[in-house]
């Protein structure tokens, strides 16, 4: 089965929620994005964001983590129903990514994915490309992350 058959275009799927603790925010930032507003709660007060907040890349990685967790369950559910799961491949990239609000220590982000369209790739027979709109919303209902990404799918 193809992705567009199991996840109808336009239908939003909530993939999961992730708590961003100060510890997690600092651990990720020390490795990948050690700007003071991501590593030091005191220093963060002197910057535009006004408090310790997650690296935008941490927020994005969280979206992927929740998508993979959701997809593993979906994959198992389809197999249990005797349906061959879609064969998703790597992603060529993303666009229009907006970090709309900082993700502060203690925030819980609920992630979602919406399939926009699916089309065969002319340059690579047997392969389709899916465009999805992706989102992260905090516990106050504010959208913190929004982007569009593509994912390959094999026949």
């Amino acid at each position: 089965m193809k992705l567009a058959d199991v996840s109808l275009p336009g239908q939003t799927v909530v993939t999961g929620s992730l708590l961003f603790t100060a510890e997690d925010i600092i651990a990720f930032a020390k490795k990948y994005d050690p700007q003071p507003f991501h590593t030091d709660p005191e220093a963060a007060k002197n910057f535009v964001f006004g408090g310790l907040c997650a690296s935008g890349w941490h927020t994005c990685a969280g979206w992927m983590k929740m998508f993979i967790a959701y997809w593993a369950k979906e994959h198992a559910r389809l197999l249990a129903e005797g349906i061959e799961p879609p064969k998703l491949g790597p992603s060529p990239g993303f666009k229009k990514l907006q970090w709309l609000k900082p993700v502060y220590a203690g925030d819980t982000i609920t992630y979602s994915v919406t399939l926009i369209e699916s089309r065969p790739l002319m340059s690579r027979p047997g392969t389709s490309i899916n465009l999805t709109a992706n989102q992260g919303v905090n516990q106050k209902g504010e959208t913190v992350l929004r982007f569009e990404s593509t994912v390959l799918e094999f026949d």
Partner: protein
Amino acid sequence: MLYLEDFTPGRVLPLASCTLDAAAIIEFASEFDPQPMHLDEEAGKASILGGLAASGWHTASLFMRMMYDGWLAKSSSEGSPGIEFMEWKKPVLAGDTLSGRSTVIEARPLRSRPGLGLVKFLHEVINQNDEIVMRGENPIMFRARPADETVTAGDRA
């Protein structure tokens, strides 16, 4: 220190270089992107990526670190509102050495926030074979140079 005024269109700022080993690829993927081609050499070889390959989000996060170490740490950065696009052009495989550059496309003061401006960059990450593995454009906010701060050698291109 690099301030808003120092980001003149066309200026090229080198990223720090970094070598990626299998353990780092597996560690990132285990936490954020546990797909077989990011966790296992054999599964990677069997995939269209051709080997144990870094998650695209790992490459993007590493790019962030390479930018920080290359030039962002000595700037007046106030973070970024987003990424216009980012393309994962080639797989990043275990053992690859990455380098790259940020090129200033345009810079403008923010009318809504006096003393701050937005600089748009083209970022390119390159492997040891001189292939572009990732490229993208994004704006970053910077503080303008304070009136009492003098320009030192290296700030201006």
